[in-house]
């Protein structure tokens, strides 16, 4: 706890506050008590002068009784402890305490000390020097005494009594003592008040500081700490709520950005790692399986030669040899898949390839009581493809269909036809630029292996009423568009998911020159969202909808090229179907629903093969109704 930054901050600021307040309070109390004492002093002095002047006349007339009466009356006033008059030799001649009269006061006593410090009576003294504060007894309250010298005047030595001679300067001293108990009480009260104020100020200050530190420092730091811990333990999907727009807010933002990048990089790394381990696996499998296959192929081909006069055995052996040879090609294409090698293409009729695939799986279909309905198009053109790989595709799809039906009686429908397709969803956008001819292709983020199109997107709340003026944009980031015309596999970072594409301040710009790419004159005909427009060098402009849920795109130059011939192969089953959430995953390597039975390689290999043939494969599925795979292959 003592190591926490909040605690340290509070400690430093708190100690500073305590010191400042303590010094302030000390001086405050001191000046307060000084002012009070000065006031009492002034008051006592005035009293002394009053007594002196009011007894003067009676003194001149030497009417001692009257002087006594005045002094007694004044001495009875509350707060006034004693009023006495001392003569030159220190004898008390008047006193409000009668029993003191006639007593001698030592020259070193409190009342005399000021004048007689040097054993010489001083004639003129400042008020400060005439004042003294003392305690008569150790346990009594403080007392302030002030002496007022009574100077010799002509009227004194000319008076009838002739008590004083002209040579004398000071005739005696009037000594007034005032109890300071009230003042001391006031000072003490003031001290207490100040201390209470000081403590409560420090307490309130610390509390406020604690709260502020907690809210603006402690909590964001704790959030960040939690987040780094989460990320450290591998949860890269963790993001911090970006609550404030101070440095911690920026830190959180950049932290989220970092984890997102990290997570993307990890996915890519994971993907390439998968492919690499698949390659190693394939190579290992190839070596291990080729030796036993050598045994099968050599013996069977040897037997085939030796049994040419036995047609029954010979026919069966032919199947063994043929299928072993196919296994050899499969293993080879596994290696090829790992090495992404080019297919061995030749001109074939797709129907024949499918027929060959059917003969391989026919037996399994019969066992599973699956009916197979063929609906082959006639007069289909010959297409250039690797018949071995393609046969593998159909075998895989048929086996999958049969597995989906399980042992309930079901139907597999397989059809081929020649169709015309618009280039929509097929054409690969290889280059796109902004109107200033800056290249928008991004080789770092690839979509299905092809460089994507990178656009900068921002939504600036500075333009929104109520938004912060001159504040940083709330949403700024890059989106990567799918480079396949008409297909929507765009990569949109999660920080931009909440972006309101219909807001007026939305900006979609070239990452290089920031020129706007939005065609403000147009709206998406499907969802009326804003439309971007990119240039494709020498192939006109391509327009598309900015909404991530819409895949409207328009590319006049390509659309004008007209429709092209494609072979469409549909394989549909009446099986269990694929849940919607799994549809996007089924072409990924090692995705399998067959558990121990499957390797999860089938559909990813199929995807690779179809892709190598410049074709496309898509899947439609309805749970418990069935699944349809549609393959499009370019014809001619």
């Amino acid at each position: 706890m003592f190591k926490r930054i909040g605690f340290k901050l509070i400690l430093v600021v708190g100690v500073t506050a305590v010191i400042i307040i303590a010094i302030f309070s000390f001086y405050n109390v001191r000046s307060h008590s000084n002012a009070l004492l000065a006031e009492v002093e002034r008051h006592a002095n005035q009293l002394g002068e009053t007594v002196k002047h009011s007894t003067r006349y009676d003194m001149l007339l030497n009417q001692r009784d009257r002087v006594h009466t005045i002094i007694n009356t004044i001495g009875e006033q509350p707060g006034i402890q004693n009023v006495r008059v001392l003569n030159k030799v220190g004898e008390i001649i008047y006193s409000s305490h009668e029993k003191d009269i006639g007593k001698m006061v030592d020259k070193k006593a409190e009342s005399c000390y000021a004048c007689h410090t040097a054993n010489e009576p001083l004639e003129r003294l400042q008020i400060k020097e005439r004042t003294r504060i003392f305690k008569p007894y150790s346990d009594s309250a403080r007392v302030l005494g002030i002496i007022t010298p009574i100077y010799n005047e002509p009227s004194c030595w000319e008076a009838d009594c002739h008590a004083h001679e002209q040579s004398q300067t000071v005739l005696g001293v009037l000594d007034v003592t005032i109890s300071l108990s009230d003042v001391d009480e006031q000072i003490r009260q003031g001290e207490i008040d100040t201390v209470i104020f000081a403590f409560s100020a420090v307490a309130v200050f610390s509390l406020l500081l604690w709260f502020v530190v907690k809210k603006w420092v402690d909590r964001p730091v704790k959030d960040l700490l939690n987040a780094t811990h989460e990320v450290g333990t591998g949860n890269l999907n963790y993001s911090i709520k970006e609550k404030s727009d101070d440095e911690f807010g920026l830190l959180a933002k950049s932290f989220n950005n970092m984890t997102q990048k990290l997570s993307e990089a990890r996915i890519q790394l994971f993907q390439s790692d998968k492919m690499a381990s698949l390659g190693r696996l394939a190579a290992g499998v190839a070596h291990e399986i080729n030796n036993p296959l050598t045994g099968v192929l050599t013996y069977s081909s040897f037997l085939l030669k030796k049994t040419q006069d036995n047609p029954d055995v010979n026919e069966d052996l032919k199947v063994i040899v043929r299928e072993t040879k196919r296994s050899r090609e499969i293993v080879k294409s596994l290696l090829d898949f790992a090495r992404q090698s080019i297919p061995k293409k030749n001109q074939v009729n797709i129907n024949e390839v499918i027929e060959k695939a059917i003969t391989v799986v026919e037996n399994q279909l019969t066992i599973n009581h699956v009916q197979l309905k063929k609906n082959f198009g006639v007069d289909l053109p010959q297409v250039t493809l690797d018949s071995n790989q393609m046969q593998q595709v159909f075998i895989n799809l048929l086996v999958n269909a049969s597995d989906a039906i399980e042992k309930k009686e079901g139907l597999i429908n397989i059809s081929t036809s020649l169709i015309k397709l618009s280039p929509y969803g097929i054409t690969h956008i290889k280059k796109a630029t902004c109107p200033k001819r800056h290249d928008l292709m991004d080789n770092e983020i690839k979509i299905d292996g092809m460089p994507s199109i990178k656009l900068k997107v921002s939504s600036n709340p500075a333009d929104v009423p109520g938004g912060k003026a001159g504040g940083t944009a709330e949403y700024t980031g890059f989106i990567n568009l799918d480079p396949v015309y008409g297909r929507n596999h765009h990569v949109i970072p999660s920080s931009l998911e909440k972006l309101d594409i219909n807001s007026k301040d939305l900006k979609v710009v070239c990452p290089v020159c920031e020129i706007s790419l939005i065609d403000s004159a147009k709206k998406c005909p499907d969802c009326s969202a804003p439309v971007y427009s990119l240039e494709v060098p020498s192939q006109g402009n391509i327009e598309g909808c900015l909404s991530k849920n819409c895949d409207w795109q328009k590319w006049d130059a390509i659309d004008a090229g007209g429709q092209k011939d494609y072979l469409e192969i549909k394989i549909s089953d009446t099986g269990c179907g694929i849940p919607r959430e799994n549809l996007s995953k089924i072409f990924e390597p090692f995705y399998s629903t067959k558990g121990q039975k499957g390797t999860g390689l089938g559909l990813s290999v199929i995807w690779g093969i179809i892709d190598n043939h410049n074709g496309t494969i898509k899947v439609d599925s309805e749970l418990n109704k069935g699944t349809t795979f549609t393959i499009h292959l370019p014809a001619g």
Partner: protein
Amino acid sequence: MLSETKSRLSADKAGSAGKKDWDILVVDDEQVVIDAVVKICSSENFTVDSAIDAKEALQKFAKNNYKLIVCDIMMPGIDGFGFLDELHKRKISSQVIMTTGYSTVENAVKSLYAGAIDFIPKPFTSDELINSVVRGMKYLEIQNLLRTYNREGSEIIYVPCPSKYFRLGYSSWVAEENSGSVLIGATDLFIKTIESISDLELFKVDDETIQGNSCAFIKDKDERMHPLLSPVSGRIIEVNEELKKNKSLIEKDPYFEGWFYRLIPSDSEYELKNLINCSSDRL
């Protein structure tokens, strides 16, 4: 390579007294492959011996002579390439046919570059094996003829590959053209190991060839199919139509009129490094 073979043969002759002569030695770490090769080759009346690894095979040379060795590349201990080196060091003249389950292009090309006369990817059929062995035997025959060859009078045994050509093992050649395309064909020695061509199976225009993989099949009078391994990878832009009409062109002029394909190589610079420069053959 020819001069090298000559020296091997002479060394062999000198030390061959009292040794048993075999046709073939199979070296493979898989017993089933050994059994299959022994069975198939025996049925064609070849004498076959076997060894389970390269070490045992090398020991066998103390007591025996072998014409051909059918050797696996991937073996525990000394592998196929190490075995080739060992043979070369010990001046053993037997010719080697490489096989491997890990049949990558690199392995095929590397073994041919290292001095093997042929490469059969596993799994192979009995025919593929026999055809390779028959060609190997014929190859040895031709090498023996070379030893007794006297420059006067005798008819030419085979025409070596022209200079500036490159060859893959002894089977196919490639010649660069000015336009960036290359011509590929079969060497005379390879044709001579196939007796009387009866048929030819060629690829089509736009087909891809891969270095070390077969790019054509030549059928001999015994209906044996002999694959021609492509010396480079690339896309075929022209097939020699004359060759289809007149198959004897391969035999008459294998290096010029008897070319097979004109193709655009995909990475000739890299692949040429794996080929033998024919200019060195004439030394």
